[in-house]
C-alpha cells in the first residue's frame, strides 16, 4: 500500500526519531512510504490558541499537499484529531499510526522486540478525540520481550495542552507532577505514548528530576528489533 507520511512540524523539527521509526515500521510491513516535502503545519496550534483566523491558509495547504494520497499516516494523535475535525474533506483519509496499523493494515503483531519495562500514557486526544481505545496497548502487548506495566490514572491529562503548558505553567506543573509520580510508581524504564508533545512535557520533568526514565514514541518501540 502506498501511504504519505504526515510528520507534523513538531516532530519534523524536534523529534525526527518518531518519524524515522514510522518509516521503518511501515516499510517492514510492506507499505511504500512517501514524504511530501511541501508539508508544514496543520494549524492546530493556531486554532487551539485562538488564532483560527491565521489557520485557514494552513488548512488549504494541507489539502493541496496530501490530496493525491489515498492514505496519510501520522505519529501524532493530536494533529490527526485536528485534521479530522477541521479539514473534513480529507479527514477520513488521515490516520494516526496505531489506527492505521490495526484498522487499515489489519496487523496487531508488528514483529517488534523490545526487552524493557514500559508504561504507556494514552494521551487525551487519542482517547477522547480519536477514540483509539486500546489499539496502542494491543500493539504493545504483542512486542517480544516487553514488560508492559499499567499506569495508574492513565486517562488523566499530563498537563501539556499546547500553550497551556506555558500560559498556565503552575497548574500544568501540578498536573505533571502527579503524572510523573504515577510513571515512577511503575518502575518502568520507558514511558511511551502516541504523541511526542505530551512526551516532551513528561520527559522534561523526568529529566529535570534526574529519574533516569526515558520517553519514547510508540512508533520507536513498534519499530524496534532489539
Amino acid at each position, binding site marked *: 500500500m502506498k501511504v504519505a507520511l504526515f*510528520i507534523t*512540524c513538531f*516532530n*519534523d*523539527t*524536534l*523529534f*525526527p526519531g518518531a*518519524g*524515522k521509526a514510522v518509516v521503518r515500521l511501515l516499510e517492514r510491513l510492506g507499505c511504500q512510504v512517501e*514524504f511530501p*516535502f*511541501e508539508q*508544514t*503545519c496543520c*494549524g492546530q*496550534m*493556531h486554532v*487551539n*490558541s*485562538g*488564532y*483560527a*483566523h*491565521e*489557520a485557514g*491558509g*494552513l488548512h488549504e*495547504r494541507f489539502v493541496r499537499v496530501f490530496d493525491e494520497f489515498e492514505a496519510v499516516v501520522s505519529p501524532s494523535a493530536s494533529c490527526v484529531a485536528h485534521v479530522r475535525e477541521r479539514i473534513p474533506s480529507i479527514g477520513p483519509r488521515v490516520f494516526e499510526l496505531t489506527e492505521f496499523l490495526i484498522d487499515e493494515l489489519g496487523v496487531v503483531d508488528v514483529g517488534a522486540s523490545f526487552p524493557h519495562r514500559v508504561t504507556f500514557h494514552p494521551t*487525551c*486526544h487519542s*482517547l*477522547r478525540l480519536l477514540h483509539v481505545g486500546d489499539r496502542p496497548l494491543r500493539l504493545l502487548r504483542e512486542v517480544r520481550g516487553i514488560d508492559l506495566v499499567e499506569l495508574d490514572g492513565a*486517562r*488523566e*491529562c499530563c*498537563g501539556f*495542552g*499546547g*500553550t*497551556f*503548558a*506555558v*500560559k*498556565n*505553567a*503552575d*497548574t*500544568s*506543573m*501540578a*498536573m*505533571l507532577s502527579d503524572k510523573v509520580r504515577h510513571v515512577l510508581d511503575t518502575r518502568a524504564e520507558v514511558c511511551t505514548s502516541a504523541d511526542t508533545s505530551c512526551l*516532551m*512535557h513528561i*520527559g*522534561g*520533568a523526568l*529529566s*529535570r528530576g534526574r529519574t533516569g526514565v526515558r520517553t519514547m514514541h510508540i512508533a520507536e518501540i513498534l519499530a524496534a528489533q532489539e
Partner: protein
Amino acid sequence: MSFQSAAKVTLRDAQLRRNVGKATGLIRAKRERAVAELPDWEALRDAGEAIKARTMATLPEQLERLEAAVTAAGGTVHWARDGAEANAIVASIAKQHGADEVIKVKSLATDEIGMNEALEAEGIHALETDLAELIVQLDPEDKQSHILVPAIHRNRAEIRALFERTIAQGQTLGYEASAIAEAARLHLRHKFLTVPVAVSGANFAVAETGTVGVVESEGNGRMCLTLPRVLVTLMGIEKVLPAWQDLEVFLQLLPRSSTAERMNPYTSLWTGVREGDGPQEFHLVLLDGGRSQVLADEVGRAALHCIRCSACLNVCPVYERVGGQAYESVYPGPIGAILTPQLRGLGEAPSLPWASSLCGACYEVCPVKIDIPSILIHLRGRVVREEKSSLTPEALAMKGMAAAFATRRRYEAAQRLARLGRGPLAKAALPGWTAMRDLPEPPKETFRDWWRRERES
C-alpha cells in the same frame, strides 16, 4: 485577577488541594458506576441535548407559555433584565410582608446576582439553609468553590471548628458527621417554622404546566418550599423546559451525573398555589442577566444547556488542582470557564477560556453533551479578535509562524533558526517552559534533512 494569578495563589494551599482532590476522586468513581448501570445512558444524553437545543431555539415562546401557565395556576411572574432588577423585585416582595429575614434554598442564580448582599443592604438577612452554603455563609472570609458542594474545599475538622465558633455558640461538638449536622439542624429548624418568606432557585420550569422544580439531597429545600407563607423563585430564563414529559430525561440525567445517585432524595415540584397547602403566595422571577447575549453566539450558546450537575468540575484536572475559587465566579470549573466570560462579557474574564488543557474529560461526562473544549477554543478566538490588539507579542508570533508555515522555503529556514533557539518557532515555545522542565536536546538534523540525505541522494 487573571485565572493564572488566582491559580498561583490557590495552588500553594496544599490542604485545599488535598480536600478537593479527595472529594472529586470519590465522586468521580461513584458517578462512573451510577452511569454504567444504565444501558441507554448515551441515548439519554442525546435526548437531553436535543431537548435543550430545541428549547433554546424557541426560548421566547417557551417563556411566554410558562408565564401564562404559572399565572393561570395563581402565581405571579416577574421579568428581570439583570441582577439589580431581580434583587429589587425580591426585596420589595419581602418588604411587603414585613420580613427582615428570608430563608433560602441553595441557588446558584441568586449567588450569581449577589442577592444575599443586596438584601442585606435593604435590611433583610438571607439565611442559607443548604448545609454547605451555610458553612460558606458562616465564615465571612469564605467563598463557594463548587456548584453542588460549595464547601468542597473544607474538611470535617474545619467545619466542626467553624460551627463551634458560630451556630453552636461555643458548645463543643462531637467528631462524627451526625453531630456536626445536628448543630445545623437545631439552628435551622426554628427558622423554617417562623420565617414567613422563602427564596429559591429552580432546576426546571415546565412551560406546558407552569410547574417549577427543585431537586436536592437534604430536605432543607423541601422545608423552605413548603413551610413559609410566601415563596419567591429566581430562575435563569434558560431553565425552562417545553413539556412535562421532558422531566423524564432530566430527572434521570441529573442525579446520576451530580451526586451519583439513581434518584435524588428530594424532588419538589409545585404548580402555582393551592389553598391550605404550602405557600399561599408564589412569585417566579425570570432572570436574563446576560443570557440573551449568550444566546446570540451560535457556538457559545450551548453553555446555556447546562443543568448544573457539576460532573465536569469533578473530572476536570485543572479544577482538581486549583479549586473553585480561582475561577472567581459562582460557576467554577469547565462550565465556569465557558459561562462566566459569556455572561459577564468576554472583557470581564478574558483569561478563563485558557483555564483548560483541552483534555476533553468534561465533554465526555456532560449529561447534555456540551462540547466544552470546542466552546473554549471558540471563545479564545473571540477574545483574541475582539478584546486584544493584533500587536501583542503573542499575536505577532502567531502571525510570524503562520507566515513561516505558508511556504516550504520559509518553513525550512525557520526550522534551522529554531534549532539554534531563535526565530518564530522557538520564540513561541521557549519562555515559561524551562523554568520547571528540561527541553530535549535539539536533534542533529530534522526529519526532512534525514529523508533528503537517506532517500534522495
